[in-house]
């Protein structure tokens, strides 16, 4: 009898604990592929600590926006921020989660990593096809100490639509009126005909072409340049100081950004003021609906993002991402408190 009782008791306990664990749902997100490595890392660590599973699918920014608009996922992710008008129309909030940096990489015989100095204007004119040789006087004037060969320039770009292209072309648009007028910014653009262009598939494709084509210049995410030992260049900051890409110069850009005056956090971090701000840094964004059907689940989702802001900085830096500055995190937390509702009630206290 005692045995039977204990069996019943233990099976009830098991059932209770099972239902408790069944309650911790899976949180589904989808979107940009650029932050996928860090979201996956955070999700892994977060599951170890809390048992809650975050399932993030890297389907591209456009896919992320489509999925969250259709409410097939709990949150969407995009490298290209939505503007205020579209956010209002879809009744969504948007906040920056983590940042990355873009660096120019080159293949010029005799030039060491970090040796060549470029300005945004020169970079834009190279991509516009107005500077066609590496020993163009505008490049040699910036680099009087370097021996630069008379080598034709091949411009390498992403052939797939990408957030990296979006941010790179945004930077060129800010720097060069001609770029802004004739070419513009997008995840995919019509590349200028005057330049000899090569399209590579993904960061790997761009790296491959730059690596083996003499005279090539391309742009990749910093993590990619670092891990593959590519020949990166220096770049002049908005204040004219030449910088090497590093976590310090990236963080300076993040700290100097004017988030306060960016409705819906629609801010691209390129060309930020400050002598030490690396000119090509960009945040990647999370999208959620303002009105949440399930308050409890919404709270779980926000818990994960909050945990990532507070505990994920080191993990992010380890993967060469830049954590959001605390001032921005505070602003995001206010948005959560004010705008996230369920049945008319705010969710986050």
């Amino acid at each position, binding site marked *: 009898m005692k045995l039977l009782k204990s069996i019943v008791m233990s099976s009830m306990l098991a059932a209770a604990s099972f239902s408790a664990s069944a309650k911790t749902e899976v949180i589904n997100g989808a979107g940009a*592929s650029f932050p996928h490595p860090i979201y996956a890392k955070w999700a892994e660590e977060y599951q170890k600590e809390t048992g809650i599973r975050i399932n993030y699918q890297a389907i591209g920014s456009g896919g992320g926006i489509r999925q969250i608009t259709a409410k097939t996922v709990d949150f969407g992710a995009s490298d290209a921020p939505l503007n205020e008008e579209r956010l209002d129309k879809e009744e969504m909030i948007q906040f920056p989660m983590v940042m990355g940096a873009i660096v120019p990489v080159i293949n010029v015989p005799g030039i060491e990593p970090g040796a060549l100095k470029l300005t945004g204007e020169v970079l834009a004119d190279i991509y516009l096809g107005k500077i066609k040789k590496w020993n163009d006087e505008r490049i040699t004037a910036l680099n009087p100490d370097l021996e630069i060969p008379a080598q034709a320039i091949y411009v390498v770009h992403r*052939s*797939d639509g990408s957030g990296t292209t979006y941010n790179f072309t945004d930077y060129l648009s800010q720097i060069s009126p001609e770029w802004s007028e004739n070419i513009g910014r997008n*995840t*995919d653009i019509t590349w200028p005909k005057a330049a000899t*262009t*090569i399209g590579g*598939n993904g960061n790997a494709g761009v790296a491959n*072409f730059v690596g*083996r084509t003499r005279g090539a210049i391309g742009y990749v995410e910093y993590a990619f340049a670092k891990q593959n030992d590519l020949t990166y260049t220096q770049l002049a900051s908005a204040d004219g100081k030449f910088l090497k890409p590093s976590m310090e110069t990236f963080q300076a850009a993040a700290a100097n950004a004017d988030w306060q005056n960016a409705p819906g956090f629609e801010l691209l971090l390129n060309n930020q003021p400050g002598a030490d701000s690396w000119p090509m840094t960009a945040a990647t964004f999370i999208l959620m609906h303002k009105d949440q059907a399930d308050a409890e689940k919404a709270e779980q989702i926000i818990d994960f993002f909050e945990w990532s802001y507070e505990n994920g900085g080191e993990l992010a830096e380890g993967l060469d991402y830049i954590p959001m500055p605390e001032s921005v995190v505070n602003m995001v937390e206010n948005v959560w408190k004010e705008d996230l509702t369920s049945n008319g009630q705010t969710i986050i206290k």
Partner: protein
Amino acid sequence: MPSAIKGDSIFYRLSFTSAILIFLVLIGIILSLIDGGWLALSEFGPGFVFRNVWDPVNSEFGAASAIYGTLVSSLIAIVIAIPVGLGTAVFLAELAPDWISRPVSMAIELLAAVPSIIYGMWGLFVFAPWFSEGFQFWALENLVGLPLIGHWFDGPPIGIGLLTAGIILSFMILPIITALTRDALKTIPNVVREAAYGVGATPYEVITRVLLPSIKNAAVGAGILGLGRALGETMAVAFVIGGANRIETSLFMPASSISSTIAQQFNEATNEMHISALISLGLVLFVLTFIVMGAARLLLRKR
């Protein structure tokens, strides 16, 4: 025998339903492509097909450059693959001793099983550098001056572009063409060969006058299947074509095909018109494939 008649009618209905189902699926695909692409189709009209502009920034789209890239890369593939495939098939079926033809046949069938993305990666990392060093530099020096075809080879020797895409495609469709043609040759009864040799024909005459004409339909069918694969192939092309949405007379220049454009831009497209234009491209590919296939069948019938 009522049960046999009943069986017949069930069988008839089943096969009839299957046939109708194919049509319904086809119509469903067309309707959903039209629905998804309506925004772009109504904006640009039928001229969408002929417009040579692809500008996501200003939401100006046209399919001409992608259609050009698709047709030219497929044409290059067919021009290379049909003679080589036919030659290989004849050698394997008629000329090679068993100890060569068996392993080679097996290798060719394995080649057909290689996923297209592997061809793309191989094309990008192995073939393109070799092609650049081994052919393009030579072509730039020696071929560019030629009349008529010189400008085909006038471009940066970077190993990728329309020509590379066409060559990679030809490798991909070679196994289909070879295997189907070889199997067709093998189905010809031996008495046919014996009779031809009996009247004093040489092996060359037997193959070109007797065997090949009798498998003409099968060979053309193999070519059409290969062409179909070349027109729709996506990932392998996306890796090596260079992704430039413009029409260039040089085969060395980066270009793009319809399917590579869709695959590369769809995921990151955030603007509704851009997405709609990409879906319209899908519709264009659908129709284009029908036209090319139909034309190929007509050609076959006329001869």
